[in-house]
């Protein structure tokens, strides 16, 4: 079991997500990456099955780029954190069929509970 944490930029929010991720999975099983290429590289060089990806989307273009990995994402469980409540962005995010879709301004405890439950179900 491994958790892949993607965010284009490092900032206060991503630091919180990173801390949150480390609280539910061991440091060794956590992969942080900051580009689509890195996400693709990690998924191509580790067992896809048994991977959960937590994608912190920066903006619309970032999500469009992530959609290029749609096929490989279909093998894993996705959690998406969106930056805004924009309808178009939400519709685009649903094309990746996430197991959970939330927003950066929502409670991070909620995200932690979901993550814990998905990890528990996968074990």
């Amino acid at each position, binding site marked *: 079991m491994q958790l892949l944490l993607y965010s284009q930029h490092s900032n206060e929010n991503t630091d919180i997500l990173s801390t949150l991720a480390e609280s539910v999975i061991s440091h060794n099983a956590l992969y942080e990456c900051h580009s689509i290429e890195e996400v*693709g590289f990690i*998924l*191509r*060089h580790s*067992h*896809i*099955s*048994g991977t959960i990806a937590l994608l912190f989307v920066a903006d619309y273009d970032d999500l469009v780029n992530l959609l290029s990995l749609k*096929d*490989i994402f*279909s*093998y894993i469980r996705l959690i998406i954190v969106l930056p805004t*409540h924009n309808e178009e962005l*939400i*519709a685009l995010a*649903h*094309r990746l*069929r*996430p*197991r*959970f*879709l939330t*927003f950066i*301004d*929502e*409670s991070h*405890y*909620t995200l932690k*509970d*979901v993550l814990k*439950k*998905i990890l528990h*179900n996968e074990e």
Partner: protein
Amino acid sequence: MVNILVIDINKDFFAVVSEKAGEKGCEISYASSLIKGINVCFTRRFDIIFLKSTMPDGKALDALPKFMNITPHPEVIVMSESTTPEEAECMIKNGAWDYFELPANPHAIYLILMRVLQYNASKVPKDSLVEKEKNSFKGIIGESLPLRSCLEIVIQAAKSDSHVLITGETGTGKELFALAIHNTSNRAHKNFVVVDCAALPETLIESTLFGHEKGAFTGADKTQDGLIKQADGGTLFLDEIGEMPLAIQKKFLRVLERQTFLMVGGRKKQTSDFRIIAATNRNLDEMVSQKHFRKDLLFRLKAFVINLPPLRDRPEDLKPLAIYHMSEICKAYGIEKKEFSHDFFKMLPQYKWPGNVRELVNALERAIVAAKHEPVLFPQHLPLQIRAKMVSAHVATEKNPHDIPREEEERESAFPQLQKFRKEAIAELENRYLRELIAHTNGDTTRASHISGLSRSRLYALLKKYNISLSH
């Protein structure tokens, strides 16, 4: 060209039909007995059959299931000199397209012929529908009878707007089937929204589904739409619906009944036009009897039911599945596609694949990783625990005392052993029973399973064993 067969003891009726149908460019054949008629149907395809109700070698009523078992089945019109209304009703129930009394004047025959020709022209074979939609069924791989039966329901469900319940063991591909329904439905241009009922903590599920108003609870800093609203115009896929808490089931049922809902902490009624596709690996009927699932909600979800077969019940799909997923995994890894050794495919059915397609995909992924730069996958590349079970099953098959050499078997066939004779007799009876059962239920496997007392997976296995089609 429409092919017509007339099964009648004398040629008078055949002569009239020949004249009328010939004008329409149809090809007409004639069989003077029921046996000849049935036999010719297994060697040639007929679209329409005119069948005399009573023939010296049998009755139309008994022969109808045999014609209905042919895929695609012909339209059978029964003609009779004296039949009671009950018998006529029975003919229709057994699959006859129409029924008429003899003697019939040429004009009446012409009208019947025109009607059936018109119907035949408008008919689209189920198989061609499955073929047509195949591009929308991405990731659903296989040609087995159980799988094709499920795809036929997918097509029917996509045409309708009723709710769908998909059941099946873990890893059978329930989400892919849900997506296939969505993608081939009128809602395809709108959202396919996944609700993973197993992933959502009980405290969160209500606000996630219904949304919440600002200030509804601690941390609700702003008003937020729920997944029901996000699915407006599209499909709400309730995965693992068996995990949905009873309290939420009640609220959800109310949404389905009233087509409106309230956000958590909200007072204003919200609307959303969505279609539900629910999936579970649990026995919801059993959960209802244990009062863990609401009967009324289950009733609403069951407008269409798709029971996905476990992989062990469709072993012929292992090879195409392996080829497809190997290609997809290699593409994802950015490496060259690999070949398979002959042994690889031979060994796959030796394992029961309890985790179904998902387990097969995981095993393939591990095999590809294990093979590294080697261009061909061998069984040795599969995970050790799977290979060990495969080898053990393979050895057991090799040692099976029933695998006697062909020559010896042929010598014995002059007068078979009682055990063999009994086995063949049972097989013949099972075959007959199942064919009649499928004809009786018009291919409805739920009813057939209920009547026969067989589990659906066992029923499918037997249908496959005897090569019985669900088409009728």
